[in-house]
């Protein structure tokens, strides 16, 4: 099989994956920095390169509502958005998941207002983390492309919708080397469209989205919870199959030089890539450091994470969003919760960073490793919650 090497931005990479998936319907509304995804895709529609019905909606709320209708009618459906757009979709996110519709959103992680901002942080997707959507974070353009293809397949295996995200501008607008798979390989990988039901199947009429009160709502939610558990198996199966066919396997997380590591940083998205540079530098100096990159945040791999991290002495969790709980960010909470049952229970501290696009440099990450090293040596945490690069 011949892969094509091209230079593409994260947005272009996701649009390319969408073209190859060739969804039945894309309903969307443009928003910085995700505009390009649907702009490029609408070009594919205009040029007849896809068979998609493209619906330019009047808002993100309408866009995702149209997606819900199209998916319920039996279509393979995708869209793209960012930040305020995802926030405006919020209500419909829960409906799509509740109706078990395998819609895929190509999302660009941008800070939620206010204050208004267009740059990267993870507050938008983190605010959607309990909506019943799978969440896959991408380190670079290549992962954005690979993840979009896999997300479609995973979503249709368990009948839950999925968000694939990239960091605003840092990845969405950064051109990188990208290996593209042949169209037919992508199509055979995702396979025939699997739908949970079909509203247009008049031989088997169904009612959908009826008022669901005390006597049935809980059962339907219980099914959704079970689907999210099943998604754990699907993520692994699809990631493994992707590796067997195309050379790069994917799982819940990536362990970068974690062998024999005493201290580790946990990061999502592009910062994981920057952290790898620092790991290499510090390893060369003899420090036993590693990086634990979380790829799939929903479903959250509690047991697997516990197993992988419990032998580490000190862990620094990098959160590109603050949960406004007064005690740190969402990734921090879930990592700490994962390790509660561990007898070894590593020290775990939280670093809030990069809000509203504040850049993070290797020297910042090196500082985190040095602080973790001190915690490991002194058996003592000075500051549980820390903020990187904010002016005091």
């Amino acid at each position: 099989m011949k892969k094509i090497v091209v230079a593409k931005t994260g947005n272009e990479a996701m649009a390319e994956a969408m073209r190859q998936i060739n969804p039945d319907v894309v309903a969307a509304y443009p928003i910085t920095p995700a505009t390009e995804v649907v702009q490029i895709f609408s070009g594919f529609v205009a040029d007849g390169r896809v068979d998609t019905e493209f619906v330019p909606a009047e808002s993100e709320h309408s866009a995702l509502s149209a997606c819900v209708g199209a998916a319920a009618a039996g279509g393979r459906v995708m869209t793209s958005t960012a930040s305020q757009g995802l926030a405006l979709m919020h209500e419909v996110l829960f409906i799509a998941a509740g109706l078990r519709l395998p819609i895929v959103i190509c999302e660009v992680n941008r800070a939620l207002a206010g204050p208004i901002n267009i740059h990267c942080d993870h507050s938008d997707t983190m605010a959607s983390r309990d909506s019943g959507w799978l969440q896959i974070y991408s380190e670079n353009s290549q992962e954005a492309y690979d993840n979009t293809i896999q997300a479609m397949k995973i979503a249709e295996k368990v009948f839950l919708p999925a968000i694939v995200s990239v960091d605003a501008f840092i990845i969405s607008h950064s051109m990188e080397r990208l290996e593209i798979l042949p169209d037919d390989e992508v199509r055979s990988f995702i396979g025939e469209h699997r739908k949970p039901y079909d509203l247009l199947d008049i031989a088997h009429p169904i009612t959908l989205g009826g008022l669901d009160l005390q006597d049935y709502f809980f059962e339907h939610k219980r099914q959704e919870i079970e689907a999210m558990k099943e998604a754990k198996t699907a993520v692994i199966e699809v990631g493994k199959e992707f590796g067997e066919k195309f050379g790069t396997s994917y799982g819940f997380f990536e362990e970068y030089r974690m062998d024999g590591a005493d201290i580790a940083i946990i990061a999502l998205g592009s910062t994981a890539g920057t952290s790898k540079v620092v790991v290499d530098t510090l390893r060369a100096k003899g420090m036993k450091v590693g990086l634990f990159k979380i790829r799939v945040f929903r479903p959250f791999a509690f047991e697997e994470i516990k197993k992988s991290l419990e032998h580490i002495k000190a862990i620094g969790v990098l959160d590109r969003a603050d949960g406004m709980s007064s005690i740190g960010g969402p990734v921090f909470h879930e990592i700490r919760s994962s390790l509660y049952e561990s007898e070894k229970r590593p020290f775990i501290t939280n670093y809030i960073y990069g809000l509203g696009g504040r850049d993070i440099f290797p020297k910042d990450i090196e500082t985190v490793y040095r602080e973790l090293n001190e915690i490991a040596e002194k058996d003592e945490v000075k500051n549980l919650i820390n903020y990187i690069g904010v002016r005091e």
Partner: protein
Amino acid sequence: MKEIFEIRWHGRGGQGAKTAALLLGDAALSTGKYIQAFPEYGPERMGAPVQSFDRLSDKPITIHSGITNPDIVIVLDPTLMKSIDVTDGLAEDGHLIINTHKSPDEIRKEFNIKGRKIATCDAYKISEDTIGKKIPNTPMLGALIKVTGLLDFEKMLKDTEEKMQKKFSGRPEIVKGNIESMKRAYEEVKQE
């Protein structure tokens, strides 16, 4: 060559600083390099000072921080020199390549630049002669390759020509003018 080569482009909104960074990245990719090319993030405004960046390497590039200490700085508009310190963060032995009719020596004296290797190229004149418009980005690519030897120039010309032919199909004069501008800048760039 260093493990990762970092380049910063200075221009004005609308001058093609972003396009130049993307063209260079694309051309470098076709010679087998790993690349990153990205604009200064934010709303684009015609005429306002803007920056764009490239990273080139023989190995995969995982860093995703901004570029603060480039090895090469390219200035697409000479008037930017008065309002911006284009040497900010530029390595002591780094290259500063400026679109100006002045000589490197004149620039060094006028702006009191210490260290660095200065090169100048009258990209406005070249682009007016070859493309018929003040479009400094493609000629400056030619100057960059001559000064740094980063890529094989012939390969790059071929790659750029192919990409432009796709973008400007039906307007061969634009492709021809741009390629000619790169060749002339390659010949005419003045170095210390």
